[in-house]
């Protein structure tokens, strides 16, 4: 046990190597709880192991570990984006192109879920049916039952895939609406929007 602890201090101990191997084979994010239950150790030790791995990667590897949708996911280092994109066409398939309308609708759903289509339309003041369909096709939004009111309208929620695509640990990682009131969109929004609109394939019904 003492030997094990010493290894851990030096960096890559058995636990780190086990966690690394599990993250390597998993295509989806894996939670600390799941890793802990397989390895029979505490969640805190798994978290520590991930942190050690992350630090080791940051120093001398081409990889990183992201915290997405409540789980850990091994990924390529952000600074190597261009190299990886040029190397493999299939990785560009991981990108989801969204128009400004789709992002706005997604933002309304994320902050009001579960929410009906007409509630989204009340906030956006334009029809959103096709945009919502597009978001569903991308798997970013799902139907979460029906509201108990006149006409039993469908309720929509964001999915885990939404968290994965946007690099969020959970829905709570989003800034609050209050904080967003003063969020500067000049430099952050103009570019990404143009980027999103240039690459968009969908036809939004409000633009």
């Amino acid at each position, binding site marked *: 046990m003492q030997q094990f602890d010493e290894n851990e201090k030096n960096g890559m101990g058995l636990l780190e190597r086990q966690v690394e191997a599990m993250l390597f084979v998993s295509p989806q994010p894996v939670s600390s709880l799941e890793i802990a239950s397989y390895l029979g150790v505490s969640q805190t030790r798994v978290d520590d192991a991930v942190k050690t791995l992350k630090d080791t990667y940051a120093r001398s590897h081409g990889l990183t570990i992201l915290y997405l949708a409540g789980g850990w996911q091994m990924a390529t280092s952000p600074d190597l984006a261009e190299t990886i994109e040029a190397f493999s066409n299939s990785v560009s398939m*991981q990108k989801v192109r969204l128009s400004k309308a789709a*992002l*706005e609708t997604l933002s309304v759903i994320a902050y009001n879920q579960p929410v009906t289509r007409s509630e989204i339309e009340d906030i956006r003041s334009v029809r959103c049916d096709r945009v919502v369909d597009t978001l569903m096709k991308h798997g970013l939004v799902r139907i979460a039952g029906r509201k108990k009111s006149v006409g039993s309208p469908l309720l929509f929620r964001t999915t885990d895939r939404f968290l994965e695509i946007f690099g969020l640990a959970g829905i709570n990682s989003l800034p609050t609406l209050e904080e967003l009131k003063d969020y500067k969109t000049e430099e952050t*929004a103009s570019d990404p929007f143009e980027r999103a609109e240039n690459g968009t394939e969908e036809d939004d019904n409000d633009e």
Partner: protein
Amino acid sequence: MTEQFEAVSKNEKEDRRGFEVQLGAFSGPLDLLCHLVESREMDPAQLNLTELVSQYVRFLVNSKRTTLNEMAEFFSFASRLLLRKVHSLFPAQRDAAEDEDLADEDMYTDEEELMRMLEIFRPYRNGAGYLAAIQKERECSFIRIADEESTPFYDLGDLYGLASLWWQMLDRYNEKRNLGDCCEESIWDDIPDAIPEERQVEQRMEELLRSIRKKELSLRDLLEERNKKILIVTLLALLEMSRLGMVRITQSETLGDVLVAAV
């Protein structure tokens, strides 16, 4: 707004010598009905426009005097109602530009309201900017691509949606099984894919007349053919027969069966 409107409608009512509509719960002048429908206070899908036209025809017959202007006014109001009804029944058919106009017209009644809406929406718009920024950041890292990911993503909705899809599919399957292959050997296979000829439409008109003379048939029955060519020719034949006044087409309730009868 209401007072002003009532004053206007009163004058117009006198001018039109009192044509009043009685449609379901509504009773009053046509322009009021049109206003209520356009301001979304009444559901256009519930309007029985055939009944409206019948009432107007009765009014014309009874009054025996009407000016061209009054008739034009009726057509104007009736077509506005018809347009609203079509929109309410086929929301997906409206194009984007029209939606934008509607949104502008209906939602922003005044500047204050517009400012209020913008104020509510601003954090969400900023939220969209934030999402775009974090997505860009996230896209710099790539993950392993598993084989499972290449399988398509299915979202079948809730249990209600799934059940209704299942019943529809079962119906189609049973129908197909009952029909067998006889459909495939139909004489209609000879019809080229180009625009149907007049002769084909005339032939279909005769066939349809023979069927509906025996008994009134629903549009669903007449269009049950799976073959695209037959469908097109049948629809053209029905339109032509309707234009020539050879058939009477009625629908007793909204979204109910459309009945076609020989005149």
